[in-house]
Structure formats: C-alpha cells, structure tokens
C-alpha cells in the first residue's frame, strides 16, 4: 500500500492524525512531563558546561510513559511508517522548543543530544493554532505534519510532530540510529 503513496497522500493522512492529536492531547499534562528543574536548565544552558542541561533532564515517569504510549498508538494510524514526537515550549523561555517524548528514528528537526532549539518557522506557524505540513526538501527526506497542542487556556503550548519518510527514499537508507 505504502509503495503507491505520494508525498501529498502521506501529508493528507498525517493531517488527519494531527486532528486527532490536537483533540486528545491535554496541553497542561504535556507540559508537566518535563520537571521544572529540567526546564530551568534547558531555558538557560551554561555554555562552559554543555552537558549540564542534559545532566539535569528528568521527567514525571508516569506522564512520560502515558504520552509515549499515546504517541506510539497515534503513529499506527498512518498508512506508512510514522514516528510521533511531542515538542513543548520551554517554560520560562517560550521562544525555545524541546522534545518531551518521542518514538522511532524519523525526526525532522531533533538532533541527537540537543536540549532545546529556537522554534522552527513551522512551529511558529503551528503556534498560531493550525496544523502545518512540511514537505520533503532537497536535504530533508521527510514528510512532516505538526499538530498544535493546547492547554486549558486554549494557548498552544507545544506541538505533535508526525514524521514519515519521503517515499522516494529507499527504506534501508533511513536512519536506524540517532
């Protein structure tokens, strides 16, 4: 089935899943996955000690497990291999996003070991409240849809990243390791 799908088909399928994600994910719960201390270090990394923020990363384990399982299930709705991750804005530094939880090896933006990153243009667009489609580029072999995650004030506090491979890329060339 997936062999016949085009990028547009995949983007449409992921957009449907994005609506489910936006409807079902509780933004307040999502923000509480990462501990306050971990946010504090992610918001203000110490350049002379680049591992300090990583040293302090920690989670509410039950919340992390629940979100991880939900994201796994979300990915199974896609007609192709799809890995789902949750980005949240960093508390106290909302211009930064950090991955709270993810699955698999298909990531559009996450780089191994990063603590936080400035919001990507697609994330900024998503923060305005709509799902955003990011197609493959000459250097990015992924189809991605971002789904906004809202809290009880209806503010967008993060986004779910749904990423699938560009169908033109041979499966064996996809990453097995970050």
């Amino acid at each position, binding site marked *: 089935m997936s062999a016949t799908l085009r990028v547009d088909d995949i983007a449409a399928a992921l957009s449907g899943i994005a609506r489910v994600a936006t409807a079902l994910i509780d933004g307040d719960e999502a923000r509480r996955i990462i501990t306050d201390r971990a946010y504090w270090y992610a918001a203000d990394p110490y350049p002379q000690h680049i591992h300090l923020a990583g*040293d302090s*990363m920690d989670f509410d384990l039950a919340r992390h497990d629940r979100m991880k*399982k939900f994201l796994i299930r979300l990915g199974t709705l896609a007609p192709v291999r799809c890995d789902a991750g949750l980005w949240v804005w960093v508390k106290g530094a909302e211009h930064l996003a950090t991955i709270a*939880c993810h699955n698999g*090896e298909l990531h559009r933006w996450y780089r191994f070991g990063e603590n936080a990153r400035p919001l990507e243009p697609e994330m900024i667009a998503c923060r305005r409240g709509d799902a955003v489609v990011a197609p493959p580029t000459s250097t990015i072999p992924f189809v991605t849809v971002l789904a906004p995650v809202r809290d009880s004030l209806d503010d967008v506090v993060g986004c779910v990243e749904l990423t699938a491979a560009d169908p033109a890329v041979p499966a064996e060339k996809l990453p097995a390791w970050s």
Partner: protein
Amino acid sequence: MSGWRVAAVHEWIAHDPFGRPKDGDLGAGVALGTVMADRVRLRAARGAYASFRVLVQGSGAYRLAAVVAGIEVDLAKAWYHRLAGDVRRWLPDALVPIASGASCVLPDPDNAIPGQTTQEFWVDLWVPRDAPRGARTGRITLDAGGASQAIPVTVEVLDIELPAEPTVVMDKNAYGCRWLERQYPRAYAGLTGDARWARLTSDLHNVHRLFHEHRGCFHHLGHGHSGAFDPIYGPRAVGAGRDRRLEGWEKFDALYGPLLDGSCFATAGPGQPRARRGATPVWGIYSPLNPDWPARYVNWGEEGYRVEFRRCIAEFDRHLRDQGWTGTKIEFFLNHKKRYRWFGWDGDETKYAKDDAYHLEIARLFHAVVKGSPVRWSYRMDASWRQGEQLEALAGSVDFWVCNDWLSWYREAAMRAVARGETVFTYGGTPSIAAPSCDALQPVYLAWARSLSGYLPWLSIAPGDDPWFASDGGGTASIYPGERFGVDGPIASIRLKIERNGVQDIDLMSLRAGDRADALRAELEPTIPIRVWKEPATVARVLDPADWDSFNLEVGHEPGSNALDRTDPAWFSAIRSYATGGSGHERHPPRR
C-alpha cells in the same frame, strides 16, 4: 651508505618524523643518546608477541627487511598523523602492514611531511606455541644508497606459554554499523540491499578479527536509543500478544554465527598477518533486547508486555541453544538515556533512584525466562552516577557491571560484586596519540590491580573525519580504516599494540603468580605510581547523585572521563619484568 641510519627503539618510545622523541615518553633519568639502540634483545613466552620500533633515517629510496629464525615477524610502517590545529606536529600511530623487504622512500610522499628525515616502523615478533625454549637470532636490515646496515635481534623464548584467554578483557566499543560506509566509501559505492548488509557483516567481522588478534574483544551495539536496529542485529518480531514471535534469522546468523562459534577467528582480516590467537568464541556480544523489542513498549506494565517478552526471549534462547552458541556472554543491555527523550528513565548511567524500578522489573522478567539456560545470558548495566548504591540495590538483578572510573570511590562495593561472581569492568576513553605511549597500559593495569574483569573504551572505531592530516587525537579510536592504503579492512594502531603487549604481561604475571595474585597486587601497588582506589569527590560525599552534574563535579563531560595519572613513562617495567621471568625490579627501557 652515507647519511642513512637504522636504529631500534623500545616499544614505549615514539619518535616524530624528525627523529625527536614524543613528549612524555622519556623518563627523567633517560639520556636522549641512549634511546636508539644498535641491537635488540627481548624475552617472549610461547604464543606471545614481543615488539620494538625501528627508526630509519636518511633521504631517498630504501628497503627494510626483518627476519628471526623460528619466529614469525610482522613489519608495519607507522603513519604520522598531523594533529588538527597544529600543522607542525606529527605523531605516529596507524600501522600499515608491509612485507619484509618492501620498497619505501624518505620523505614519504603519501604522508607529505615537509623535511621528513625519519620513518618509524613497528616490529612484532610472534613465538609459535611449539617453539622450544632458548635464543633465536635474526636481524633487521636496511638497504639504502647501495649499501646495507643490520641490527642483530635476539629473542629468548621462555619456558612458559601464554594462556589462550586474557586475564582482563580490553573490550572495544562501537554503536551500530553504518560508520563503516563512511570509512570505506569506495567499497560501499553503489551497494544496496542484501549485498550491502553482507558487506557490513564482513567488515564487522574484520574489526572483530583485528581486536581478537590483539587479545581484545569488540562490542557493537545494534539498537539505538529508540530501540530500533538494522536487520543484521536481530530477527523481526512480528505479531502481537500471544502471537508475538521472531522471524528471519538469516542476517543475524550471518553476523553472529561465526563470532559465537569462533570460526570468524580462524582467518585474519585483509592485509593482516595470519590469525594466531585461536578460533575461540567471542567473549561477549550485545543482544538486540531493549525496552521496545521484542516486547512492545506500548504495553509496558501490562500483561501483554510480559507475554510478548517471555515468548520472544524464550524463542531467542532456543535459537542460540539449537545452534550450540553457548560459549559467549549474551548481554541484555539498555543503552537509552532520558536526556535523549525516547524513554523517561535511564537505561544507561541511571541518575535517579526512581528509575531503578524499571530495571528491577525488566531484569526480573528476563531472569525468569533464561534461568537454567546453557546460554550465557547476562543483564548488563553501565553505571556512573549511582553505581555506589546500585552495586548493592541491584545485586541479584545485574550480573555484569560496566562502571565509569568513579568505581575507584567504591572499593568495598565493587569487591562485594566481584565476590558474588559478577563481572565488573570499568569504562572510559582511549589515550590520545599525543599522550605518553605508556598511557595505553594504565587501563590494563588498573583492571588487574582492582581484580576486575576488563576495561571498555566507550568508542574505539571513530578516528574522526580526517585522521591522517587533521587528527582529533584518536581518543575514540584504536584502529583505522585501511582503504587509503589499499587494505580492504581495518589496520591497527601503535596504542593497540602496546595495550596488547600489556595484556600479555598481565596474563603471564597472573600465570606465574598462581594463587598469589592478590598478594602480588598488594606488593606491586605501592611501587607503581598510579592510584588504584581513590577518595570520592567532595560533591559526591555531600550530595545525592541526583544533584551531581558535570559542573559541580568539575568534569568536562558527562561521567566517563578518566584523568590519567602522570607517571614515569617506564612505570610498567616492573610488570614486564615479572611477566617475562625477571624479579620485577628491572627497568625497561634501562636507565643509564
């Protein structure tokens, strides 16, 4: 033969391409003029290597030959690595095997060092296991400028045989296999599908062969932090719940079969001397087991997870039994760290006590399945922050500990684990090529001195983007890709050779000591200026490990950096002397 010189140098003293000794390789009492010798006399056990370096100095074409009657002689030319950011500094490390009598040129046009006057070679002498005791003689011959110079070589074959298995396991580490494609771009160009996996398998075998022959072991972890792995590392897990099962062992068997039955080691890798250590099963391997394979993490904590876990690991165990692969430690190792966000808890280097509950549960499930199996299954934990507590709290769950050097703070807990019969390693780095040559021996000595089973440099196959002309120091590599030199496989480094010889020394010393090993440790420790056990850092005394970090511990990286003690470079002499039949009081190289 005007202008040419050939000289022998002790294996622990490197020289740059202008004939100057490496910083830190000469002891305070060693006169520069005494370093280059005009004769070689070594002692070696049967089945063991003895080594030295040869310096050729001059300008133009030359040939170097080496022969010793009844001894197998391997010759390798050292590559001088230019260090990144230091364009006038070159240091020897990678060893390109050459045939005896091969034609060379000084300056070496490939190494491209302006004004090079000196070329270093490494000579390995291997004593056959059936060699009779006594002296063997030969020579190193330099033919240059229409004349010859020779260095006489004498090897005294000892009446002792190197044990088949090393006393300490120097366990080289890697992650996945795709780094091979970057290191051998010509070989992989255009390779796809099964041909690509076959090539990766073959290349991994060659890395195993090189480390095995150097008396070490090689581990390459298949699964990433997410739990995903390439298909050579495990079969497919298909189905769900009561129907979860493993399918398609072909690629796994092709990779691991020759390692687990030892047949991989019956032959040497491309360009290497013949295999001599013996075709014995590899000491240990990582298994692909992880929190999301073969049981699916989506069901973690539920009966579905436990059923999938039990079914598939029992099937895995049955496969290993059916193949007779019961001579190797098969490790269940969780590598994921919470800082990378795939899982909320640390599988590796657990920092928070609350995470131990996951280990206890998964180890309970694991041991219940494999209990009584002839397969040497092991639950391995790599520990740093909380090792002091975990050595006690996880006793009975973990049976293989790989701890960072903070283990030196926890002597009693470590010795209790050893006494329980658990395997204990430390991990750390590989000394830089700019460090004193003898630094390669410190982890070997420390493993033995602490009564541990081995040492694991966390990454051993990554010499950087340009190891030849912009070396990063080689702190994550002890082998190099040979493709540049026409060798279709890895080549060894000088640091690996020194380490191998050190392992041999420990093996022979242990053999000689017999049941006096502990007494010998106690005897040697005060005479060797390397601290075996240490006092904890202040922070470690007053804070919970959850509150330690790289800042308050004043370490430059997450746990794992080992600050080596600076010592007289000949500190290992006492061990070498004892190992080769002396009293332990002679010095190598000698002081004048």
